[in-house]
């Protein structure tokens, strides 16, 4: 027998009670894991935004277009390293319910700007640049739809129509773009702006937004002010901000997800804390006589403290580890279903580490008071002998 087996024996002396507490903790960590993964994915754009990347959108609203001419003018601004542009296509596959994230972009500059985020093989890159109807498909989307290089895709738009009256743009998959990090969204299609611009029935020579990189994050403010000043009092004034601020503002449209997650997880944890803390205190009260016997046998106060704290820590880990494991499974299952809405939802190691830290915290907080009272227990009083 060891201290650990003694702790385990004590914990499971009332099996139903132990099982119920484990299930409660497991549920709390399941909720924690799923919600935090959701929140991370939701705010991934903000976290992954490059410090030297700026977004230039229409000052009225980012859904309003900008003239293509801005692209050339912004290139010439001092401090700008690279510029690209993109249009929201409003794409779908076969039926409108099969929503797709499709962007019409300037291929060469776009790939350069997102070089750190997207891993595009050289042959795919060359094919994309050279084929006018070529489309680069993100890995997640390609896997979801079963698309591969060479496939012909009829992609429709809910916004645009073609000059010939059609709504379908024929594209060829020329490459699969892999995300460089787990949170990076690879649920997209990018295709040539030129192809899009020449065939669409309206909005010719208008772009959705500009994305640019600066020579250094230190010049971001200066570049933003210069760009906005350049187009001040025009028909399409601009608002230039860092990619991080842009993504944050975009995410904020859906509400303060981080706060909602914190409140839900906090409520779950406070409830569990009270249940487990109360149960641990009750369990120690029930065993006052046995603890007194252990002290009589010569178990020193510090060892009594360790035994009780060990029990609450073991309980937290027995509930928490399966809970976070289930959360990982749930996240993996939800990842497919939420691909179009919350791409990049994964259980990252940092979430798992945070969960383990919380488990240890939960174990310590719920066990510390009973452990101290057990440690300070007066043997004679507890044995009812005086």
């Amino acid at each position: 027998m060891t201290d650990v087996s003694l702790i385990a024996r004590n914990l499971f002396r009332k099996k139903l009670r132990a099982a119920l507490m484990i299930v409660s903790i497991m549920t709390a960590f399941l909720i924690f894991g799923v919600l935090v993964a959701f929140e991370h994915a939701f705010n991934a754009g903000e976290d992954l935004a490059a410090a030297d990347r700026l977004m230039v959108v229409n000052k009225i609203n980012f859904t309003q277009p900008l003239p293509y001419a801005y692209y050339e003018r912004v290139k010439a601004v001092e401090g700008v390293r690279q510029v690209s542009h993109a249009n929201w296509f409003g794409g779908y596959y076969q039926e409108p319910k099969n929503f797709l994230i499709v962007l019409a972009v300037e291929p060469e500059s776009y790939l350069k700007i997102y070089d750190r985020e997207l891993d595009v093989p050289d042959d795919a890159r060359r094919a994309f640049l050279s084929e006018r109807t070529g489309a680069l498909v993100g890995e997640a989307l390609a896997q979801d739809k079963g698309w591969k290089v060479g496939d012909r895709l009829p992609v429709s738009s809910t916004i645009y129509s073609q000059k010939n009256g059609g709504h379908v743009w024929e594209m060829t998959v020329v490459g699969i773009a892999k995300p460089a990090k787990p949170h990076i969204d690879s649920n997209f299609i990018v295709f040539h702006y030129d192809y899009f611009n020449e065939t669409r029935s309206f909005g010719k020579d208008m772009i959705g937004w500009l994305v640019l990189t600066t020579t250094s994050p230190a010049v971001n403010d200066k570049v933003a002010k210069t760009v906005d000043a350049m187009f001040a009092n025009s028909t399409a004034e601009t608002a230039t901000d860092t990619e991080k601020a842009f993504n944050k503002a975009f995410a904020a449209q859906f509400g303060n997800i981080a706060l909602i997650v914190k409140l839900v997880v906090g409520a779950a944890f406070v409830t569990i804390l009270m249940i487990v803390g109360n149960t641990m205190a009750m369990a120690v009260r029930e065993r006052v006589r046995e603890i007194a016997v252990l002290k009589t046998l010569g178990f020193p106060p510090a060892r009594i403290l360790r035994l009780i704290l060990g029990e609450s820590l073991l309980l937290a880990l027995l509930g928490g580890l399966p809970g976070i494991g289930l959360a990982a499974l749930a996240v993996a299952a939800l990842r497919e279903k939420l691909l179009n809405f919350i791409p990049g939802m994964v259980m990252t190691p940092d979430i798992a580490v945070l969960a383990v830290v919380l488990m240890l915290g939960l174990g310590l907080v719920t066990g510390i008071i009973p452990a101290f009272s057990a440690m300070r227990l007066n043997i004679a009083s507890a044995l009812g002998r005086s």
Partner: protein
Amino acid sequence: MTSDDVLVRLTAVDKRFTKSKETITIFEKLDLAIASGDFIAVMGPSGSGKTTLLNLLGGIDRPSAGEIRFAGERIDGLPESRLAHWRAGHIGFIFQFYNLMPMLTAAQNVELPLLLTSLGGKDRRRRVEAALAVVNLADRARHYPREMSGGQQQRVAIARAVVADPGLLLCDEPTGDLDRSNADEILEVLRLLNREMGKTIVMVTHDPAAAKYAKRTLHLDKGRFSERDLAA
């Protein structure tokens, strides 16, 4: 009794409790010497201080004044952690209601004091088997307390008390919860431990038949030993 023979000596021990502003004196200037290898029965009416005496001897309570020495070492002033270490090495407790851990088998209960030693698993198992053999319960090693009679549980408690080979056994009404037959079995084991293994035993009891197993009997009343005890 020479000073070399004395295992435990209480000198001018006072013990007072304060209960809602009222101070209750249990002992005042109590002196007692217990020789190594002695078997003492302590008798007396309820409230006479028998259990308090055991608590003081076992280092689970401290005197209000005076000193307690065990094998010449003063123990009444030791800090709690050192006192716990001292208890583990020198004292074996046997309680009226056995006080076994219900979730542990007989062998695991007996093994508990050995968790405080540096013995390895194999040595611990050997010591546990030997202790259970002394109390004739080798065949019950894997049984839980709920699967044993009161007498068997008390024998497990005795095995737990002796497994770490302490010099002094303190027994608080060890037969108080048992019928005559079981009580006699327990008392025979205690006598065996005293005679064959040289354990010094102090046993609190209300039962005159139990006291007959001891080498001498101390009568405690209102915190004082009777004159004939002191003479003895």
